[in-house]
């Protein structure tokens, strides 16, 4: 399919209930924002997963470069002191 005939890709974010974040749940092709919202509703909220939907054109998202993963993320591997695991928490907070 030539690029001219292909509908743009959209990333779909669904909020499962009020107060929670919109979470990324997938992507779909649609011709315009309205269609993207409708199709997101039909594809990703069929089983009552959502109360609100966002769609963002995938080409509007700036992403980190997978090739730079080693310099971006690997240095954090040995810095355990950044995790708050050295504090002793009261037992009642065991779900932190």
């Amino acid at each position, binding site marked *: 399919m030539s690029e001219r005939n292909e509908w743009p890709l959209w990333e779909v974010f669904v909020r499962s209930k009020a107060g929670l974040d919109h979470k990324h749940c997938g992507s779909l092709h649609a011709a315009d924002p309205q269609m993207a919202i409708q*199709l997101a509703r*039909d*594809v990703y909220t*069929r089983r009552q997963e959502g109360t609100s939907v966002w769609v963002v054109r995938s080409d509007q998202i700036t992403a980190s470069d997978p090739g730079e993963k080693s310099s971006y993320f690997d240095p954090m591997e040995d810095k355990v002191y950044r995790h708050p695991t050295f504090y002793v928490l009261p037992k009642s907070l065991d779900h932190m």
Partner: protein
Amino acid sequence: MPASITVSSHPSVQYLLRIGDTCLIHAQRLAEWSGHAPIVEEDIALANMALDLIGQARAVLGRAGELEAELGGEAHDEDQLAFLRDERDFRNCTIVELPRGDFALTMLRNCALAIFLKLLWDGLAASSDGQLAAIAGKAVKEARYHEEHAAGWVVRLGDGTSESAARSKAALDVLWPYVAELFEDDAIDAAAAASGLGPRWSELRDGWHAAFGAVLAAAALEAPAERAFRSTGKAGRHSEHLGYVLAEMQHLQRAYPGGVW
């Protein structure tokens, strides 16, 4: 082969059959798109909407069967009503049994039917039958979404490329002669209005033309001229297409009576 059932000719039962059968056959035609829609997202959307309509058909046919018993006849459940009636006993509007055609025809028909059903459910929400009013209250939300979905497509296709506009126009020409039947009144409508069961369908005509006309205008399409022809599916006299729909839909229950998954 299990024998076909005969349904009460009481006007209230007949009124409910018109609604339930219209939803059921409409759903059956929509479900034909499963695996054939132009994109997978639409495939899922159309299947969702077919399932909404099946849910509405189940509820209304179920109520019709109960009503038969309340009126002193034999009760039928939704499955018996869907699978064991002959063509002549189906009361759906003819427009829903026409072949699904191309995507333009399907979207125009969906839009026409969604607007019609939305107006009908709105009227039925005030029904003197509490169960029917509850069914309508839930179904109207589904119809609103179906309208939004289909109207978007009608505008996109009608006001799209020369190919999509030509197909939309051709589809409208095919469907238009069958629209008038939706709003034809008879004794069953009069009885429903008198008992408070539901509105005469002719009462929905103006609202439908206003809403559908607005979609056509946005789609740069024009309604064809009105003709004298009237289809008669609501009275059980169908086009040649319904028999084939029923043959496919009823085959399993006729061949394996009471079969379940």
